[in-house]
């Protein structure tokens, strides 16, 4: 696993939303993680308030990173597989992430929805290294 850059940018990692900007290099969601990926430092752990989620770009992939109140970190694709909802704005608990648009819930363990026949959400490995958030995509 290599770290592409070690310094988190001071300015927000992501540019302002330009509505309609094409999603560059988005990958299709799936439960199976790539056996080996590239690790990206996307920001500082402090960028994500305890209990909340924030969106980042890891390489060319948008990810939502969550810091739960138990201290654990989780990362998922940024958009809900159901209707494209902003998952970083969702609510969480130790078991699931809930999308803010239609309240679909996805399990951290495998990304599967807890109800309905929706596609699962893609889960990415994430860890902290010296205060930096590292997401592997």
């Amino acid at each position, binding site marked *: 696993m290599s770290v592409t850059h070690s310094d988190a940018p001071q300015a*927000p*990692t*992501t*540019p*302002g*939303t330009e*509505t*309609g*900007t*094409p*999603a*560059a290099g*988005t990958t299709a969601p799936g439960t199976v993680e790539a056996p080996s990926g590239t690790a990206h430092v996307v920001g500082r752990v*402090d*960028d*994500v*308030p*305890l*209990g*909340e*989620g*924030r*969106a*980042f*770009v890891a390489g060319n992939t*948008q990810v*939502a990173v969550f810091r739960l*109140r138990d201290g654990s970190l989780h990362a998922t694709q*940024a*958009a809900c597989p159901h*209707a*494209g*909802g*902003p*998952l*970083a*704005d*969702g*609510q*969480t*608990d*130790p*078991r*699931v*992430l*809930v999308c*803010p*648009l239609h*309240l679909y*819930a996805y399990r951290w363990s495998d990304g599967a929805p*807890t*109800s*309905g026949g929706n596609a699962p959400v893609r889960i990415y490995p994430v860890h902290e290294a010296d205060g930096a958030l590292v997401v592997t995509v």
Partner: protein
Amino acid sequence: MGAVLGGRPEGMTSLHFALSDADGVDPRQRLVVVGNGMAGARLVEEVLERGGGEQFAITVFGEEPHGNYNRIMLSHVLAGEEHEDDIVLNSHDWYADNGITLRAGVRVERIDTHAKLVYATDGTATGYDQLVIATGSRSFVPPMAGLRTADEALLPGVLGFRTIDDTRAMLAAAGEHEKAVVVGGGLLGLEAARALQGHGLAVEVVHAGTHLMNQQLDPDGGAILKQSVEALGITVHLATRTSEVIGPDRVRGVVLADGRAIDADLLVLAAGIRPVTEVALMSGIEVERGIVVDDQLRTDDPDVYAVGECAQHRGELYGLVAPVWEQARVLADVLTGTDPDAEYHGSRTATKLKVAGVDVATMGVNRPERDADEFLVISEPRRGVHLSVVIRDDVLIGATLLGDTRKVAFLTQAFDRGTPLPEERIRLLVDLSDGAAEVGVAELPGESQVCNCNGVTKQAICDTVAGGCASVGGVMDATRAGKGCGSCKGLVQQIVEWAAGGDVVEDPSASWYVPGIPLAKPALIAAIREQQLRSVPAVFAALAPGGEEDAKSKMGLTSLLRMVWGSDYEQENDAKFINDRVHANIQRDGTFSVVPQMKGGVTTAAQLRKIADVAEKYEVPMIKVTGGQRIDLLGVRKEDLPAMWADLGMPSGYAYGKSMRTVKTCVGSDFCRFGLGDSTQLGIDLETRFQGIESPAKIKMAVVGCPRNCAEAYVKDVGVVAVGNGKWEVYVGGAAGASVRKGDLLATVGSPAEVMQLTGRFLQYYRENANWLERTYDFVPRVGLPHLQRVLLEDGEGIVAELDEGIQRSIDAYTDPWAQDRAEPATPGQFRPALPLVALPKVPVR
């Protein structure tokens, strides 16, 4: 008399080339039908349908000169609702076109069953191979003195009600006369009476039975029907006969058996029907009450059959059309050999009709016959409704519906097919819900959509139950049914219960305030107060099983803590829903809507100018006037929110929260010509006082200056209506969303100050007692208006002072979230975009 119904224009002849062999002899069997009424003609149709036109040379004798017409509709012709041409079923042309010889206006006198010849009154003899008697029935003429003239004809002014000629005569007489007596209070008599009354005649009905329609109704039902008929202005005489007709030249009146005399210039005989069996009798065919037939409709002569009202099958005579149709089908099968073993086993008669403007449906028996029979009767004489069912061994064997036939579909099904009956028998007759007409869950087709928000069908719910999920909450979680607007939750529950067949797992969580804490709301509030729990994590730690957080419980707990603690609640952004974190309503593309406060829907030119400037500066894609009398800026990027609030300089309109949203008003007394009170000012005052108050679900209010209700106060959570003399009505529990409900009048008070006080008490009681996301339109009916009035108006529980204190604490804790968070973000990155690069499902810009 009159024109021939369904006749051919004069002078027209028809050419018919019969199938013939080289010798010019028709090789087909000769089928002769005696009688051209509904049974005879229907039989011919059924025979033709089975290819019988090639098998048989068909001859039909009809006593009437007409084609075949729908006798059932005669009462409609009499009432003037149908033209007689419209009731023709088969015209003379139809017979000609189908190669059938119609001998209309020719009566058959007798049959020589040995020589196989039919003798008609015109002197002809017609040979047959197979013969069908379908002579139907005629009006029963009760014995009475003076009914006939010296030559045995009926006295002028005396009419039956059986044929189109009877009907024409009645119509002609109706124009010339004023008083009619109808003999017979059955279906036909009542229809004749109603129709004649419609033509302006004074009508009296004389009925020998002790109650009307005694063939179909029990005595109580008959009594209620009598009320309904008399309410129409028709006089009814029961349990008496007409013993004498007053003449002598024509009808002048009648004398009843009890000696009373009634003036009348028209006497209609509708005292039942009798099978016409003379032809059969004269021909030596077995006749009891009717012509006796076996299960193949065969008489005691192997080549002679009988169908319809003249036939007696297994001891029964049928006077309804459905059994006659069945008989015609069976006989056609037998005659044509389509099914030589076809048998008729009798009919279970169910009928639905309108008698004298009253809906009646009957099936099977109308009263219990054995000790063990269940008999349920619902009688509402005032409404003219009488409903009853008879059940034997869990099977419906009879039902009578008078005045209300909404349940006839289910009952007919249960009667015909023996479908299972609800354990609570009363559900057979009435829907026990107070909502809209309810479709039985069992009858709902599988593909019908139950949850319109999430597109869940009945089948999907049943499949989930079949898959082992047997709790209502579990099914709702699995299918998302009922998780949209929630208006289908009741139906979802019913379907789950039905699909699980009584194996529904009690859902303990149904009574919990939020799914993650196993406590109902009062116990939860008590625990929060007792243990001084001031944050959502503290509540989870103390009260959740294993101290575990639950994402879907956080929003409800946040609302509850703010209600309990006011400003002493410990803020945590992560416990809030995104709308409450950024004080704006998230849209489907991840953008937000910004609705500035506009109290009472009143704005100024300066405000509008500012809104316009802000909309331009931030390239707001849509500006929309909302239903709540405000202006909505839609499609705003999250990161623009704080700057927009700063530029607007207006407080939040709370168009995103489970909280007090807006107070709509009409122009009230300032400008309106009709305004009885200053609704605009009261609306502004209400919005000022209760702005941003958290509640279990959103609260919408309105104040109107008069009952014209221009701002729709009757359908708000709290609606206030000025009724003049300084008085205001306060309605609660109204709705005009997925559910529509007029609010209940909580009280009429004498001043705006009292409106404010009562509204505060109601709000606080609702906040403390309603379940999470339970709107007032569910809450108010649940606790009941009398209970609310006792608690809020009479202080029946001694809590009014507490309620006043509680609401005041929340009012005091109010701060404008826009002013607060634009100064300093609540958490780092509060307004950072959550979908940085993803192509959003764009909402079209108009």
